[in-house]
């Protein structure tokens, strides 16, 4: 694990599904960047946003708070947030915070996209 800034990339898979690749560190410093990425990933017809954490290095409690904020925004739009690529540790964190109840976790992007296609 290492400290550093967040790195984000947005992939529009189709009008309904977008993927945000999240790498680096998800901390309070990532607030504006993550919000901007969500806005960019969010189209008129977007129903599912997949957060790909394969390149995540570190996420702290403030980062979890950002995910909650993201989740609130998504709920307002009746969107679903999915997650993939989480290490065992962050799967534990999601479980501990019950984020896994609101953000469905998939082992990899393929599984996440397959699930997204059914929503």
């Amino acid at each position, binding site marked *: *694990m*290492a*400290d550093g800034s967040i790195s984000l990339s947005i992939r529009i898979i189709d009008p309904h599904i977008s993927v945000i690749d999240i790498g680096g*560190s998800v*901390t*309070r*410093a990532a607030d504006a960047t993550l919000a901007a990425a969500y806005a960019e990933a969010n189209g008129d017809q977007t129903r599912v946003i997949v957060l790909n954490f394969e390149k995540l290095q*570190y996420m*702290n*409690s*403030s980062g*979890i*708070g*950002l995910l*909650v*904020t993201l*989740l*609130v925004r998504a*709920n307002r739009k009746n969107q679903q947030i999915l997650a993939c690529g989480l*290490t*065992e*540790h962050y799967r*534990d*964190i999601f*479980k*501990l*915070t*019950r*984020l896994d*109840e*609101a953000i469905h976790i998939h082992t990899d992007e393929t599984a996440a996209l397959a699930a997204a296609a059914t929503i």
Partner: protein
Amino acid sequence: MAPAHQAPLVGEIARSLPDAEGVLTTFAGQLIEAADAQGALDALIEAVQTFLPTTGLAILPAPVLVGSANPLTLNALLTPDSDLAQSLVANPYSTHELPEGIGTGYEYFSPLVAVGECFGLVLLEELPEIDARPLLTAMTAWTAATIAALQARHQADAANRILTARADELGIAEIIQRSLLPQGAPRLPDWSITQHYQPARTIGGDLYDFIPLPNGLLALVLGDASDKGVPAALMMATVKPLLRAAAQRLVLPGLVLAEVNEGLCTQIPPGMFVTCFLALLDPVNGRLRYANAGQTAPFVVTEGKVEPLEASGWPLGMLPGRSYDEGEIVLGLGHALVLYSDGLSESSSESGEFFGTDRIKTVLSTLGTSDPVAALEAARRDHDDSGEEQDDDITMVALIHQKPAPSDDMPVDQVASFALPSTEDIGPKAANRVLAAVANLEMTTARRDRLYTAVAEAAMNAAEHGNGFRPDRTVLLNVEANENQLTVTVSDSGIGGPIGDVPDPNLDAKLAGLQSPRGWGLFLIRRLVDKCSYQSSPEGNRVELTVLLGSDHPDRELNPLED
């Protein structure tokens, strides 16, 4: 006018008068009893008056002593540098021509000369009929010798009185200063405090003190007054209670020095000042907060590295309204703080070479397990080969955070202690340091990951809430381990207030907008380690994280609802 005679001989005297021996014995007894020069001269006058009437001769006036006829002129002529005085001293029994105006009307004179000094002249208007000159010459010579001895004794007495008075003053200064110094070093678990104080020939005004403070803190003081002797001792007697009173109330060393400076500026004599280093130690975590009012910078010794502990500030008592920078370090296990007065660095060898700060650093860098104070004093003695008392007080105080003795229960290589600045990226930095410190412990990856997050969260909380992200406040981390458990203690300075008992965050409430999206930190810490406790005091917050080790404690299944 008759010249002075040759040196008198016993035989000549004995032949001059049948009772010369009795006269001389009486005269000698009076000289011995004379208390001063005038007493000796009175004895001479009495002896001559007793002696000469038997010859039927008169003395007019009685023996005339230097200055009696024309004191100013004679005194001027007989100053030690005068030709006459030097001539008389060189040849007291030779013929001398008296200067014009002095010897007029006298037939006889004899110089009062002894030990190279001329004390005056004895003059007679008429010579006795019998040749009494050898006897008179002998008596003037003995009188002069007596005067010389009396004067020497008076000078010695005066010198002794001065020396005695000086010794009394030094005695007073030493008594004052000794009474100011602590009787011994305080005993603290896991800490060793050693000290050395050596007063100078002239008391130099060093002061050191240990002040127990509320909440288990300890203040260390080392100061030095600008003067010596009684004034310096009195100055330190003024400073000590000021420091003690301020330290009890203010806790922050910079504020303590500022308050003492204000108090001292109204009391200190012009031109005097006091240098002073003040540190506050939290013995539990090794946190040391310090400020310095112009005292020599102490050294911190960490694993062979020796660094001065710099902080700027004016000496106390020079100018009111001064502020004092504060610094903060953590004295980890095995680390030492060494305070010393300039009497050590300026201790000089016979050739005049100072002991010097470079030599102090060298000694401290090669300490090994030695006591810094003992090592420095041994090196100073080697350097100071003069065998003389030093010119200034020498004071040394060492504060050593002792490593626990190696044992099966607590391997020392699994213990670390460090401080980090209160920055936004402190979490991963703290966690990486802790994980590196416990790399040798057998822990599963899950345990390490959980410890990593818990430590990072605790450090972030301390930096943000405890220290307000102030760059001058550090977060302290202590790591201790034995075969059963690993404990990480995270401490802050508590300026953001105490750690509250906050309820667990609730995701549903957060999603409903009833709670802030944030506020997960303490919850995560509590869930990710086996034990978590925290306490708050005016000195700061302390969070203790414990991870149980060994096969008896497999990784727990994390449960968001557990207590």
